[in-house]
């Protein structure tokens, strides 16, 4: 496990040690899908959202 924070809501994230590049993880606080874009050093960013009609 390694620690970082969610780029969306600043929640502490525990990243599994065996995580892979391009893997998607979810933030437990805000529900954002985050993509691992680099492992060394660890970098992640918001994954592209699937377009949907929520709220219509």
């Amino acid at each position, binding site marked *: 496990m390694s620690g970082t924070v969610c780029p*969306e*809501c*600043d*929640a502490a994230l525990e990243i599994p040690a065996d995580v892979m590049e391009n893997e998607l993880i979810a*933030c437990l*606080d*805000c*529900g*954002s*899908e985050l993509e691992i874009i680099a492992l060394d050093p660890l970098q992640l960013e918001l994954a592209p959202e699937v377009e949907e009609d929520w709220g219509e």
Partner: protein
Amino acid sequence: MIRVGIVGGSGFTGGELLRLLLYHPDVEVVQVSSRSQARRPMHHVHPNLRGHSRLQFIAPDALQPCDLLFLALPHGAAAREIERYALLAPAIIDLSADFRLNDAASWQHWYGEAHAAPDWMPRFVYGLPEYQREQVRGASCVSGVGCNATAINLALMPLVRAGWIERAAIELKVGSSEGGNRATAGSHHPLRSGAVRTYSAAGHRHMAEVRLVLGEDLPLHFSVTAIEMVRGVHLLAHCDLRQARDEREIWRLYRAACEGEPFLRLVRSKTGLHRVPEPRVVAGTNYCDLGFELDSDGRHLVVMAALDNLGKGAAGSAVQCMNLMVGLEETTGLTFPGLYP
């Protein structure tokens, strides 16, 4: 076991208190009074409690001494007989508005009549644990809270305590059970069903409690609209912040406010159907869900909240206060997670 009595147990709030207390592991409900339902079984007016207790309503003058009395009476009635109730129990929780304020003139202004027991007003602690937990813990007399005021107070307290908020305009959508169990022309089904009825666009009496908790100086307005819902309060607060903030600052502020608070939950999800607080999700529970949306300018913040007016807005908060008053775990008897869907 704490031997508890309920005075005025035939209303909606009394029924909710009974539902919670009958399954509280440290409480025995020993008496429930009702002037209108004396000698009738509780399930006569609270059908969900059929088979859960053999208690019958008793007349108010038949009340006996016990450890703690909940007063679930119409506004004004508790104050008129508070001396008698105080002789019956060393601890009192009054769910009406009679002892929420600490000033008789203010009470008269908001409730339209002189207070019947002004000397008792300073003896009561306003029963919102998230506002003043330690005062509730040591109190023998605690007041209940107004449901609409509680939604506003819990939603905005983090911003007020941080000094971030400049002003707020709030819209509350509420369910019909706020009106109590007495039928009126306005509650007649053909007229009430499907209604979207703003019954207090300005000057709602709960403003007094909001001022008590959030302070006199914050420019704040709220309106209340009854909608097609039985239980629930839904709050939207349009807040102007003193300076622009980014979303992560708001997250940190509200996350800190909810930490350690067993009945506050931060609901702001980027995914799924339930991304913001909804009254339906908290119906029957003691939770108040909080959420927000920050406008692109960083200064217009929309805060959202949802609670059950009979739960966190009345009976649930009262039981939470009882737990604190008698030294129990604050969440005892209050962990029901609600129904879904």
